[in-house]
Structure formats: structure tokens, C-alpha cells
């Protein structure tokens, strides 16, 4: 289990190393330091929340599209709620994060949304944890994409792991040379990998060997307690 304090230390180290690698803007580093500070004060509790508000997303250094045009990458995570008290359940009670890419005139050109479906009487169709292209951002003025599917079955990713996705894809050289094999970076990322992957992949292993359903069916929202 990952305590709030452990998550705080790991988050701060991720922020520091991203900034020093020239990937994350100073204000993004500053926000993550704040968030880490808030988490750290919770001490050894195993239920905690973290987030990056959509009106103050993490902004990464300028990247470029295939034509060499400048693009900006933003990461927000409106609500990540962790509760590890029940070992039989996913540690995430809520997960709602997005990577948004804007062009040089700040127009949204792509958005990926990773979240935990609402599990209710009328469960949102799809895997409990899924990746979606587009996806509605509550409060956003950008038009909703007309297609909300497919929802790809995908392990949960919280802020740090999403930062690594951004780093590896949009800043490959920096990630490959400065982060990927850095022991301190790996240690910090491992903390969040344990949080995100341990329960998920245990369930996926069960899904793969189950004869009652397909793996996708097993990971559907209505199959999670």
C-alpha cells in the first residue's frame, strides 16, 4: 500500500526530475510541489486524494508536431481519490484525468481522457478503467466529440504515470537520455506503478484465465464490485 507521504515524496521527485530534464514548465513543477506538500501532511494514511485542476493544468515545454509546428501539451486530473482499505477492490474510488494537446493558436487538436467509470445502477458502459479519445471535460467549452467510443480497456494512470506518458512520447530524447534509466526517477514511478497496476493486473490475470467471459468482459465496469 502507498501512504500519502510516500506518494508525496515520489510526486515531488517526479516534478523535480521532469523540470531538470527540461520537460515540465516551472509553474507545473511548482504546482506539483504544492500538491506533494499537501499530501505529505496527511502522513501515513492510505486513503487520500490528489489532482490537477483543469483551470490550472500542468503545462509542459513546447513540443512539435510532425510538421515542425509548435504544440502545447497539458495534463489535468480533476479528481483522483485513493482508498486502499479494501484489498479486494481497486485502490481508485475516482479517477478522471486528461491529456490535451493544443496548436500554436491554443486550439484543442487532441484530447485523451483516462478515467474510472461511474459504477451505479446504470453503469456507464465500458471497462471500469478506460482510455478514451476525446471524452467530455466537465465545464469545458470545447465541443464534445460526437463519438464517445471506443473506450479502450486500460490500466489506471495517475498524474506521475501520465507525466511519463507525455515525456516519453512528446519529449522522447529527453526522457530516453535523462529519465528512463535514472534510478531516482524509476523509484518514484515504481511507487505509482504499484498503486495503479498491482490490483488491476491481478484482476486482468484472472480475466485471462477465466472461461466464463472474455478478458474485456471481465474488466467491464459492471464486473467490478
Amino acid at each position, binding site marked *: 500500500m502507498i501512504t500519502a507521504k510516500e506518494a508525496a515524496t515520489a510526486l515531488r521527485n517526479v516534478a523535480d526530475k521532469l523540470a531538470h530534464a527540461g520537460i515540465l514548465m516551472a509553474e507545473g513543477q511548482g504546482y506539483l510541489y504544492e500538491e506533494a506538500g499537501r499530501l505529505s501532511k496527511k502522513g501515513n494514511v492510505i486513503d487520500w486524494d490528489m489532482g490537477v485542476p483543469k483551470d490550472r493544468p500542468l503545462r509542459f515545454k513546447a513540443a512539435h508536431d510532425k510538421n515542425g509546428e509548435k504544440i502545447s501539451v497539458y495534463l489535468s486530473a480533476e479528481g483522483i481519490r485513493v482508498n486502499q482499505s479494501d484489498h479486494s477492490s481497486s485502490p481508485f474510488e475516482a479517477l478522471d484525468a486528461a491529456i490535451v494537446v493544443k496548436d500554436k493558436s491554443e486550439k484543442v487538436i487532441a484530447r485523451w481522457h483516462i478515467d474510472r467509470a461511474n459504477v451505479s445502477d446504470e453503469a456507464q458502459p465500458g471497462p471500469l478503467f478506460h482510455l478514451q479519445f476525446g471524452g467530455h471535460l466537465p465545464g469545458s467549452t470545447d465541443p464534445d466529440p460526437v463519438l464517445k467510443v471506443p473506450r479502450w480497456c486500460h490500466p489506471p494512470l495517475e498524474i506521475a504515470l501520465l507525466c511519463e506518458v507525455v515525456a516519453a512520447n512528446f519529449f522522447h530524447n529527453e526522457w530516453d537520455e*535523462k529519465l528512463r534509466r535514472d*534510478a531516482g526517477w524509476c523509484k518514484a514511478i515504481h511507487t505509482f506503478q504499484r498503486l495503479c497496476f498491482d490490483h488491476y493486473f491481478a484482476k486482468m490475470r484472472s480475466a485471462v484465465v477465466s472461461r466464463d467471459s472474455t478478458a474485456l468482459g471481465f474488466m467491464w465496469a459492471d464486473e467490478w464490485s
Partner: protein
Amino acid sequence: MAFLGLLIDDQDKHLTASLRTKEVLDFEWLPLQPVTKLAVEIVKKSPAIVALDYRLDEAPEGLEAEDVYKGSALAQHLRDGAIGEPSSDFPIVLVSTEEKLEKLYAPDKTAHDLFDRVYRKEVLTSERDRIRAELVALASGYADLNGRNGKFDPYDILRAEQETEELGFQDLTLAFERADAPHLISKYILKNIIDRPGLLFDSCDAAARLGVTVESFNELIPTIDEAGVAYRGLFSDGWQRWWSDRLLDWAETRFDARPASLGANKRSAVLNAAIGTKTEPARSTWNDSDEELISFACCCCHKGSEVRHSLSVFAPNCAKFTIRPRICWDCIQNDRHENHEPKIIVDETDAELVEYVQSKDRDE
């Protein structure tokens, strides 16, 4: 005509012989006086460089007890004067035997900002050539800066090319714009450009980027200098450096890949085949492998090292374009960081890994 240097030392008058470079830089010893009087006399002589002992209070002949002072007080006086006369500035170097010099003179201490360089008296003989070259470079560099009438263009001073060097860092441009005197430019360049990898590499960092030993890098110097990679800007006569972007571009053309994506042995082999040299690949200080992605020089042992067997080092107050220093696991395991002068402190992000590294077997 030779530059004139002045030595202010209450005990070691003979150091003038160690510091001078015949027909290039002569040194004259000045006896102690009350600080303001001595400062006036120094400025009157228009020196090209001033060397001070830190402890001017050990044998202060002719000074009343209340007039005794340390070298830093004199240096502060001289620096204040230079702000008012930016075309008459000169480098000030500290020359001392003080055992605990690092504690008295550390990057975060006030006195640090006053001196362009610090030299231990004990090494003036053993490192004579290097120190003399640096003193001459400082003298000639300040002469260059003094002639600019307070207008400091970074591209011109660093002899950078607008097309190849990106110097538009706010940190750098503001420092040059705001400098009121040459010693402020000197301080900035020495601290952020000469002493730290980033815009420039020294031979150790350059060798690491190319995946070869430092000794082998010397074999490559004529070729890369011919390609225009050498730094020829301010202080280059005293500190041999190479433009980092130019070196990496040159290397990428040779390797047909990013240098850091290839093992050291592959890079060495490509260079030897392309240029006809006999370079030796750099070897990991951790496992002696020449297949590692050697990509920087350890800040402790200065040997080429790889990210995966190294830790980040605490480095406050560095310009953003500088590369944060790293220390190899070999140095950590052998406690060299503790014994280094000044002591090397592992950055807090990697501090928890020190114990892990110190107890780790070298099995990978």
C-alpha cells in the same frame, strides 16, 4: 608589453615568481596599508590582475590592530570601485594556504562572489602551467571587457554564431544587460558557462558524449577543432572548452544517431572507422563495461559515466541552461563524495538511494 599583476600578501612575497608568465604577465608585490589607502594605490597602478591572500591579518607589519583586515574586505572595496569605473576593472584572485578554505570560501558564502578564482598556494608549483594560463586569460579577458564601455553583447563576447548557438536564455540575456562592470560578466561566465556543462563542455564531458576516454578525446581534438567546435570566446585561452550543440551535431552526423543512444564501444568504433583514429571506448566506472550509454562526466571523479549508475547532485543557484551534475555509483560506494572538496551532496530526490548503492553488489 606585459600585463601588470599585483600581489597583496603579508607573508609570501616570493609568490610573484610562481604567478608570472615571462613577457606576458609580470607580478609586483605591494606591502600592506590600511584598506582604503591600499585600494587607491592598487587602482592607480591600473593592474591587469590582482592576487590576494585571504589572511592578510597574520603578519600585518606597519598596520595598527584596528586597521587589520582580511583579503575579502580589500576585494569588496575594489569591486565597489569598479562599479563606478567599469572600464578600469580587473580580475581578483584569491591565493591562500588556508586549510579550511572551502568553509571560508564556498559557493554560498558572501566572499565567494568577490573573486574570479581561488588558488591554493600548495599547488602553484605543481599546477603552474594551468594556473599561469588561467591568470593570463583572466587578464586579457578583462582587457577585452574594459574596452566595451559597459556594453556587453553575449554573442560577441562568447564568439558565438547567431545561427548555431542559442543564447536567448533569459537568465543569460538579463545578466549581460544588467552588468554594471566587467567583473559581473566574468563572474557569470565563469560560474555558468566555463565551470558548468551546458553551453560548453570541458574535455571530460566532451569525451563522455563521444563515448571515449579523455585520453582518446585528445586524439580527436584536431578534427573537431577543424570542424569549428572549439570555443574561442572570453577566457578560452585559460579554459579549453567546446560548444556543446556543435559537438553533439558533429557527433550525430558521424554516428547517424543521437550519441547517447549508442553504447560507448559503438561510438568509439564509428569514430575510428570514420576518422582513422585509435580511440578507446569509455568504460563504466561501475561495471567496467564499454557497452554502457556513457553520456556525462561524473562531477567527482570526472570519468565518463552512465545515467543508470549515477545519482543527481545538489546544485543550487544554477542557470537553467546548465546541466545538473551527477555522481557515479562508484564514487558513492567509495565515499568519494564525502571526501571531495567541496563536499558533494546528493540531491534530495536521490538521497534515499545512497544506502542502496553503497550496499549494492556490482552484478550488472
